[in-house]
């Protein structure tokens, strides 16, 4: 089996990075979290806008997502900063993350002496965690520990012709190595339910896939009416896409050709390896959070128009569908799948992606990570706030 140089975790997973995370349980404490992060360069603050004021289902969803962001294998240790009166209680969040076996500490602004003291105590804790994390050494880890998030955004007509099929080769390679790939963006599967259903490893998984996509299509119909199944955006149509199924077929190329082994909820950690479908939205930034909470340790992001978006704890490899975008955004795109239009084969680009994914897993930073293009994260909300 091929290996990468990573960081094994007590829960059996392995990271490709060794971050110390400063995690606010609620947006109200983003300030103290920021102060700790500025005092201890090298730790990663995970600013978000949630943690309170949400109805039951979103509250449960967000508790799961925040917990699983903390348990992500790229995270070595977590300092949870709570407020005290928030919906998602910091102490419970810290306990839930600690079940993964990694070091977790917790401070509460309302009961641990207020912001200044929490920042002082938190700075000392964060510094100690960072010292410990810095001492950890990479060891060979089986490729079965690699969990690849599949993302596309700012797609164009070539995304489904060059970049996504090349990523599909990467997905097939990783599945054959025993690893995991996470396909999501269910809105971009509309029209392909019958195709993806056939790819279920069992009839039951196939049924779950179909149900997931049908549900999304029904939701879209509520907004767009009966034409939801045939409607695509003006930009897509100008680019040569004629139907939503054509667009979706181009999107799901990222998933290669193997069987679907499991369907999981947004930010839920799969128990199976291979190709897993995660229930997530089309909006890139929400989607990426779900992918990371579901345990991705590397992400590959295809784009037609180009985007600088990275993610705080997971390296994101950018793949452009065309050379024009590759040249227009030289500091953002790692791989140019547009060279397929200049004579390279799909396999050439697939091989480039397979090689780069392994070096990124070993520690090399792709462009978005090298420039720390992350910052605030966004988490899916299905309902309004109170």
């Amino acid at each position, binding site marked *: 089996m091929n290996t990468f140089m990573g960081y094994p975790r007590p829960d059996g997973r392995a990271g490709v990075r060794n971050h110390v995370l400063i995690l606010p349980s609620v947006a109200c404490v983003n300030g103290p979290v920021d102060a700790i992060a500025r005092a201890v360069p090298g730790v990663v603050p995970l600013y978000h806008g949630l943690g309170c004021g949400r109805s039951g289902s979103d509250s449960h969803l967000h508790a799961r997502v925040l917990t699983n962001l903390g348990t992500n294998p790229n995270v070595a240790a977590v300092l949870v900063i709570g407020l005290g009166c928030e919906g998602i209680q910091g102490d419970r969040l810290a306990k839930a993350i600690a079940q993964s076996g990694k070091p977790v500490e917790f401070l509460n602004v309302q009961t641990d002496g207020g912001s200044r003291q929490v920042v002082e105590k938190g700075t000392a804790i964060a510094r100690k965690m960072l010292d410990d994390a810095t001492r950890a050494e990479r060891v060979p880890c089986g490729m079965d520990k690699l969990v690849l998030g599949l993302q596309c955004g700012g797609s*164009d*007509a*070539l995304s*489904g*012709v060059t970049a996504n*099929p090349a990523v599909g080769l990467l997905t097939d390679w990783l599945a054959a190595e025993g690893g995991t790939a996470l396909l999501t963006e269910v809105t971009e599967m509309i029209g*392909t339910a019958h*195709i993806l259903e056939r790819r279920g490893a069992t009839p039951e998984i196939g049924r779950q896939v179909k149900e997931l996509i049908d549900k999304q299509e029904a939701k879209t119909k509520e907004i*767009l*009416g009966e*034409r939801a199944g*045939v*409607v*695509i*955006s*003006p930009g897509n*149509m100008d*680019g*040569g896409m*004629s*139907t939503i*199924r*054509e667009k979706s*077929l*181009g999107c799901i*190329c990222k998933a290669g050709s193997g069987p679907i082994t499991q369907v999981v909820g947004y930010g839920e950690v799969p128990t199976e390896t291979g190709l897993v479908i995660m229930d997530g939205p089309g909006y890139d930034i929400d989607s990426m959070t779900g992918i990371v909470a579901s345990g991705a340790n590397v992400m590959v992001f295809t784009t037609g128009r180009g985007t600088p978006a990275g993610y705080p704890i997971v390296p994101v490899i950018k793949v452009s569908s065309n050379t024009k975008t590759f040249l227009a955004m030289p500091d953002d795109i790692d791989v140019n799948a547009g060279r397929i*239009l*200049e*004579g*390279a084969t799909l396999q050439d680009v697939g091989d480039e992606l397979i090689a780069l994914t392994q070096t990124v897993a070993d520690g090399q930073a792709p462009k978005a990570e090298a420039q720390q293009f992350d910052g605030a994260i966004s988490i899916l909300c299905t309902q309004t706030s109170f």
Partner: protein
Amino acid sequence: MATPKYIHINDKDNAVIALAGLKKGEVLEVDGEAITARDDIPQSHKMAIADIPEGAPVIKYGEEIGKAGTDIKKGDWVHAHNIAGSTNLQKVVDDRFAQNTGKGAAK
């Protein structure tokens, strides 16, 4: 390296992607067969490489992407105008706007 003029994604596909676009009358050799473009085909749009009768599937990625809304001839530009039920989101938005404002109602 030579720049290919088209991509035939899957052997089953009855339409190919004109990577740089094609002028009406331009001849494209697809899998050994010379096919003449019967329309101007914009960049990255599709050209039929077989006759597709009305109601028959238009195939790309080896799968049906829609049904021919009219008889499509080999060499035709294949897009919203000849695929049944294909709708541009802009039209939906325009129609809804027209319904909501009572102005410029779409016929």
